[in-house]
């Protein structure tokens, strides 16, 4: 027994470290923030009869409009259309004072990344869902998770934890871009995708 005691302790420490690293850390690594206001793509699409392009369009100069500015919202929501408090809050907080809504953008790439939606959508004919999940049906906005260390969103970094290894989000880090580019035989220099 005495002989094995050391080994047992060693294994114990080993196990503790592993579980902490693989299960606890991925949770602790991210801080969760809620969006300034809730938003339902589903409602806007079904009830509002809007198309994705109405808000997320590629402009003529090739830039991507991303999330629309508040005046776009004001176009319809100058006065409450529905009955939700969330809408009232939005009107009070943002539309009336004409303040931009500080959305937390899940898929925001680092400042030094240059990503042209025009390329990927117009030329390469990629579906939006290829990188962003099908937001169209989403009824609410999930919490935004920011990596405490690097400061970037979980959607960008991907997810190392075993917990949701099953439906693991691929992430939108450079390696993920490169993987796809290699599959499609796109040769790039650094500055093709960095600015």
């Amino acid at each position: 027994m005495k002989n094995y005691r050391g080994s047992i302790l060693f294994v114990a420490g080993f196990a503790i470290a592993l579980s902490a690293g693989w299960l606890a850390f991925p949770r602790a690594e991210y801080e969760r923030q809620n969006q300034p206001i809730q938003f339902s793509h589903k409602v806007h699409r079904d009830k509002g009869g809007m198309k994705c392009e109405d808000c997320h369009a590629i402009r003529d100069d090739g830039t991507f409009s991303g999330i629309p500015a508040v005046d776009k919202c004001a176009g319809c929501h100058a006065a409450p259309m529905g009955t939700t408090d969330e809408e009232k809050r939005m009107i009070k907080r943002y539309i009336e004072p004409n303040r931009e809504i500080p959305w937390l953008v899940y898929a925001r790439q680092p400042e030094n990344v240059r990503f042209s939606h025009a390329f990927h959508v117009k030329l390469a004919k990629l579906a939006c869902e290829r990188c962003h999940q099908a937001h169209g049906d989403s009824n609410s906005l999930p919490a935004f998770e920011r990596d405490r260390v690097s400061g970037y969103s979980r959607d960008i970094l991907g997810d190392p934890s075993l917990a949701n290894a099953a439906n693991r989000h691929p992430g939108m880090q450079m390696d993920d871009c490169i993987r796809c580019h290699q599959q499609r035989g796109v040769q790039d220099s650094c500055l093709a995708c960095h600015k």
Partner: protein
Amino acid sequence: MGLGRRDLLKLVGGGAAGFFLTPVPWRLIDGVAIRTESWPGVPDPPRGEVRTRYTTCTLCPAACGVRARCVVDQPVSLAGVASHPASAGVLCPAGLCGHHLPLLPNRLRQALARKGDNFQPVGIDAVAGAVATALADMRQNGSAERVAVLDARPGRTASLMYRRWLRAAPNGTYLLAPSAEATAPMGIDIARTGTVLSFGAPVLDGWGTPGRVLEARKTFRLIQVETRQSRTALLADGWLPIRPGTEAALALGIANVLIEEKLYDAAAARNASDFAAYAALAAQFPPQRAAQLTGIPAQTIIAAAHDFVGHGPAIAIAASDPGGGPLGEDEQIAIAALNVLSGSIGREGGFLPRGEASRPAGFEEAALAPEQGIAEVPDASIRVLIIDDARAAGTWCWSAIERKLAATHIVVAMTEFLEGAAQHADFAVPAPAYLEAGEDAPAPPDVPAAMFSLAGALLKPPPEAVDGAAFLNQVAGGGPALADVLKQRVAAIHASRRGEVFHYADASRTAVRDVKSAADLWKALEEGGCWIDHQPTPHEKPLFAILGDAPDRVLEAASGRLPADAQFPLALVPYGWRGAAGGAISPIMTKLYQESDLRPGGDTIELHPDTARKYGVADGHVAIVQTRCGSCQRRVRVDESVMPGVIQAEVGPSASGNCRPEALLNACGVAGDGTWRLARASLRRA
């Protein structure tokens, strides 16, 4: 069994081993490295829709077209407007970073009143009140003192409003800024000019409309007469390094050659009433004498004269240096006379008469106070002085103005920064900065056509800011707003049905008569456009006197401006460049002043190695320049290209970015004719 030290070590050891098989260390190492991309030291550029907007640059008289690239509403970069009739797609360095000016930290955001040596916040109405009471007081005891507006950027619609306002005010006097580039009734047809004989004009370094000039550079010969080896001198076809202050002598010397050799345009000469007198004057300056005075070999002078008239239309110009101030009136006469000899006045490729954008009713010349130079006003005569755009007054010699002020006086500066003349004011009133003021830009001084462009505001001015017209209205208790007068003027232009509109956005042109309404014209101009009318106003060549009323003064000027002086053996030559004439500059200008040695900067003097040796200073030393009027301390730069016996001193910003040329300019002192471009000086190491 308790945990012994050994056991604990084992446990920790196991933990350590396991630790490296988890994502933790790797995510941390990676994450930290990624964090360095966006750590606190790195600013975030703005995000949003990128738009292109157009306006006109009002930083100098060139009135270049500006294409502004904006993120949402904030301009992030400025560029020229391709094929713009005057600026031809060019902006100068200062213009390129003009969008920084409204954001400068030292921006004046509220009115200030002088208390002793420093300023204290005060309401604008208080300032207006102070002026109003002064006026009332003057009216009551009908004093002979004057109310004056000193306009740094004459020729604007606002200038017209000042002049009309002054007409109504007691002894209202409208003053042109000392170094302001005159809005002459004639433009230069540079595109067709054959030869340009420039007396110190920075032809290639910010003179007239740089775009036009540089574009035409391929076609004209350039003879630069200048003491300093300026950038223009470097690229000129001929450089005549002239002894300081002897320009008139050279002009007459050249005239002498032309007249002797009958190389002048006799027809043109006949229009001069006093040609004989002029010829006689010139006769006193044979090349040899001119050579003695100017230090330029006689042969060179003769060659220059031949060169001057040898290549088609030839013009002689004597523009004021943005830092050094204007040439003396008498020199100007002597130089201008050369244009009579070359017959370039009213001739293609020479000076062409030009019209003016129609004025709205009530702004006829008769209804306005006349334009006057500061020298014309008697000393100690101004009770109330309102300086418009004091920022542009960064390079004035304050003593030139100060001496005109009455014993009790109020000086109000309309300004964006507490720079330049504003530092001497009793009140500083915040004015809209460049890109904030919805105003107009007059025709550039050298364009041989009538021009009118709007400088549409891209940004909102700070709430307190008021433009000059508004302030005067407040003083007078009412009056039309600048915007309205501008609209009226545009309407007048539309009514005149003359000229065409150039659209910045697509470089297209529309004849005014095809523009439906005044409103459309206004819209076109405000969205970025300029009105231009090449149709010269009918103009017969009247008889005129070359030498004006002062042949003897010209003679005196030509005999040398700078008497020898044992105590002050050196010649101090201040100079500057348009881009830096404005006091405050964008921090990006550090590229020119601090991070490269492209511009020596306002804290340096340049000396010839021999001069430096003679006075015991070397490159990098700090030296004291002493004149009869004052002294200033500057860092020495030794340079082969400087004329021996000359101290070159740049007037303008230094590496530190701020423009405080006071000491130098005061040391230069102001001559009787209101110039300070030259002084006798001595030099010693600090």
